[in-house]
């Protein structure tokens, strides 16, 4: 694990601002802790002083993970948030942003690695832009069950939802990472 570069910090900040403006700073302040990246391109955020001290003490062991897993960053690509990060921010700020809420059928299909079809979408939360990473939320408990990439912007999605019956099987969010991947416990869990 190593300290994340300025570029990575900038990308993470950009994503969080896009979703929550500066409100996210009330819940996670990247300048107050360490942002770390491991060899699997997983990003971890460590802010607790005690954790930082122990981390420094065991740094020679080249830790593979520490603290809060906030997402992934691959060279030349964008920051991909983790379900845990978005869930933390939704709970901390009391607001869901950049998300699609899906039905039971959608939850089941998504956790099996499938994309989200229009017929499964119950609600959408701004901001959503074409190509943006959004969270997929279980309508029952509002738990984030994974991360997807929206194929449409918010307005287009709104329009499509009005004609749900006609475009039932239209893929609207592609599966990037879902919690179902945790069933493969000895595999490095990379987004698709």
């Amino acid at each position, binding site marked *: 694990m190593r300290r994340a570069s300025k570029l990575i910090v900038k990308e993470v900040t950009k994503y969080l601002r896009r979703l929550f403006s500066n409100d996210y700073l009330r819940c996670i302040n990247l300048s107050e802790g360490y942002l770390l990246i491991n060899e699997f391109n997983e990003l971890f955020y460590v802010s607790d002083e005690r954790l930082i001290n122990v*981390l420094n003490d*065991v740094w020679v062991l*080249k*830790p593979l993970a520490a603290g809060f897993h906030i997402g992934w960053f691959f060279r030349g690509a964008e920051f991909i948030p983790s379900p845990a990060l978005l869930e933390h921010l939704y709970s901390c700020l009391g607001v869901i942003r950049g998300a699609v809420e899906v039905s039971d059928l959608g939850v089941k299909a998504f956790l099996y690695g499938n994309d989200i079809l229009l017929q499964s979408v119950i609600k959408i939360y701004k901001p959503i832009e074409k190509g943006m990473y959004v969270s997929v939320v279980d309508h029952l408990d509002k738990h984030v069950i994974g991360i997807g990439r929206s194929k449409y912007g918010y307005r287009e999605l709104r329009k499509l939802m009005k004609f749900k019956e006609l475009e039932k099987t239209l893929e609207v969010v592609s599966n990037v990472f879902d*919690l179902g991947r945790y069933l493969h416990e*000895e*595999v490095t869990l990379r987004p698709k």
Partner: protein
Amino acid sequence: MIKEILKDITIEPSLRAKELANRYGYRPYMIERYLNIMPEEEVIQLLEAFERRLKPVIRCNDLRVNCDELIKALSKLGFELRPIKWSGIGYRVVKSPKSPTIGSTHEYLKGYYYVYRDAASLIPPIVLDPKPSDVVLDMCAAPGGKATHIAQLMRGSGVVVANDISRRRVIALINHVKRLGLTNVIVTNYDARKLPKVIKLRFKKILLDAPCSAEGGIMFDPERKVKTSINDLAMIIERELSLLKAAIDMLEEGGVVVYTTCSIAPEENEYVITKVIESRDDVKVVEPNINLWSRGIEEFHRLKFISDVRKCIRVWPHKHGMEGFFICTLRKIS
């Protein structure tokens, strides 16, 4: 060292041991050992207990979910769960539907619980008794059942350094930490025997779940009946000894190490404790905070152990309906 261990642990099987070994499919030395520890009727009970598969156990992650609500949700799916009272957050899965399995429900994926093959694994973290302010080391932590239990007992505060030598298993550990939403864990991948020389940090609490012969878990893996030769056992013991010595080296004064194995072999347990205590004067065996099970055995075959091993915990499959386990608390003294 191995020669000395071999000399100590070699045991000649009797005719009766060979008969029973043949009937149940074991290596004869293992049966001879059981006959040395307990009366024959009890040996038969033990061997019969190893023929019965145990039901899995879950640990509710009360940092993320209300346990009553979790049990209700799992009941709706067709699971029947019985609380394991001494654990507080453990439940035995006594009945399961055809689908899903207990390790593949949406609740599992959301990090609401951890699945064990048995309840005995819940004991060592409870005996370690970590507090939210502690810095704890789990030396051989993968796949993470005990390390995540410790982190949960610390209520997401303090620090758990979860180490394991196996790269593959460490990945499973990281995935469990992420799935359960724990943020007070540092994961490292190192040979735990070398840790005292590499890091200066000293710990108040250490869990050493030593890689062992797994002789207590024959009900899950019947191949264990024949897998470990007496030579293999000597090598395993040597590793257990060096791991325990390393653990003590990394303790601060007054700190405790909980040594545990999923083996019922006295050679891997009371023998290891005795050897370590006899080799140094900075450590002693202490009573655990809980023992609802059996005590350690003081002698076996021609080996006489230190009397303090009576303070250690033994879980017997035929007596306690759980996987065979050994748990012992050692405190570092000045």
